[in-house]
């Protein structure tokens, strides 16, 4: 019986990847909507996040900003289903108002891979998309699929490298390919540019923009990088336990709420 996840790769490969490594697909239809209603997360008696309401459409990049401790990572974990939350997250096809199951691609802040860990990029990738034990076999077909997926982010040459030896930018490209296999409806990126140089950041943002244009997915990104927020975000959400301001980048960055949250304004962070 073919593995569900493997079938996912086949879909992906058909839909989006050419051997040139460019992302190419049909683009966002703009008709899928992720509605978060009244999301509240508690840790014992402490309220971490409360009454968060957000509407996210495919083809849009929504950037969540906020001070440390504002609940950004908690919200991401709640969306991932990793921690229990109140409220609902619905994924609807607006054409027929039918609820569908949401497939999330997640790019974590960092990996728990110490120096000297014998995990290659192939092992890491195959571990998530296949059930064939990577400690025993390396089927040619699976390797080819992984190379094709890595090509989307110019990471195909990294396949035999050890994950612990990758640079920040290289690791991020690998993680993005994993998050996009199988193609998700929602891509969640939790501060993905920490520890990456200026050039790497530029490449990363361009890739996100390309993904947005060619894939049928919505992107939520937690970021501290204001330059990016202004240039690439479609929507910005300012979080401080709850949504205190949401809208177009300029609207939020020039708002009173923003100035209040970050003290003297932009320069404070």
């Amino acid at each position, binding site marked *: 019986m073919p593995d569900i*996840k493997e079938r996912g790769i086949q879909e992906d490969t058909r839909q989006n990847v050419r051997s040139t490594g460019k992302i190419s697909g049909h683009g966002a239809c703009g008709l899928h909507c992720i509605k978060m209603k009244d999301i509240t997360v508690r840790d014992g008696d402490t309220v971490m996040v409360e009454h968060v309401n957000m509407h996210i459409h495919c083809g849009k990049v929504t950037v969540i900003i906020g001070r440390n401790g504002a609940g950004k990572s908690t919200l991401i*974990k709640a969306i*991932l*289903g*990793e921690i229990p939350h109140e409220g609902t997250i619905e994924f609807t096809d607006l054409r027929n108002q039918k609820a569908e199951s949401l497939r*999330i*691609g*997640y790019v*974590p802040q*960092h*990996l*728990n*891979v110490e120096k*000297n*860990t*014998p*995990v*290659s990029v*192939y*092992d*890491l990738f*195959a*571990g*998530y*998309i*296949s*059930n*064939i*034990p*990577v*400690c*025993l076999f*390396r089927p040619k077909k699976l390797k080819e699929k992984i190379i094709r997926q890595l090509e989307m982010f110019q990471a195909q040459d990294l396949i*035999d490298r*050890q*994950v612990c030896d990758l640079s920040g930018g290289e690791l991020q490209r690998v*993680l993005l390919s*994993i998050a996009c296999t199988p193609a998700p409806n929602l891509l*969640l990126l939790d501060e993905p540019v920490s520890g990456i140089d200026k050039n790497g950041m530029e490449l990363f943002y361009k890739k996100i923009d390309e993904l947005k244009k060619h894939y049928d997915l919505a992107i939520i990104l937690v970021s501290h990088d204001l330059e990016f927020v202004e240039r690439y975000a479609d929507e910005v959400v300012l979080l401080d336990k709850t949504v205190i301001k949401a809208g177009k980048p300029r609207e939020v960055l020039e708002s009173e709420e923003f100035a209040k949250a970050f003290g003297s304004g932009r320069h404070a962070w």
Partner: protein
Amino acid sequence: MQWISEFLKYDFMKNALAAILIITPLFGILGTMIVNNKLAFFSDALGHSAFTGMALGVILGVSDTGISMVVFGILFALLLNYIRSRNTLSNDTVISVFSSVSTAIGLVILSRGGNFSKYSQILVGDILSIRPSEIVSLLVILIITILFWAVAFNKLLAMSVNVSLAKSKGIPVRRLETVFSVLIAIIVMLSIRWIGILIINALLILPAASARNIASNMREYHLFSVLIAVFSGVLGLVISYFLNTAAGPTIVILSGTIFFITLLTRGIVKQS
């Protein structure tokens, strides 16, 4: 080749060799993920809890304390896992508390009336006293481990790298953690009488730790770990026979030596 026939002249040596040929690959395989998932301290605590498992067997009058050790080991692993998942204390603190308390309870019960020397064999183990029926139970657990690896290895790996990412890919992290720690508990408890509380963790960790020095992917990691475990196990048993030393510690010294050799040569091996 005369030494081989001399070595295998006795049935207990044949049994011990058979047991070593099962235990060492088992430990070689299991060790890889114990090290990757940072469970070395956990398996160590499990080993120490064998005292209490044995003591409970003595109190309850169980004829084979092996059974009470396995049952207690599983309960210990489940309870420890539950408390760790509550996240109220740091991991090493919780494990340390469990380890010391279970050691103390076991020692108190076993030493009642000055009888501890009767049980002290469990400290270093005695592979030469293993019986064929016990070898069969080790073989069964080796097969179970290989099956578990075939089904769940990739998920264990994914879990060790990043729990949130694993969960986002639909991997049942909690359930898998529980099954894995129960498996470790069963294996540790079934083999501890032959290997000994004091050194069982060394045998679990050293082959994998050595393999990490020279492997650059998961297949090499497993291959080297199993080869190092079997090599030091068999050679250690033979040496212990001729030097008349305890088998377990002799094997550990060999594995330790291999660890340092791989540590020193890793730059050369990996470059090539």
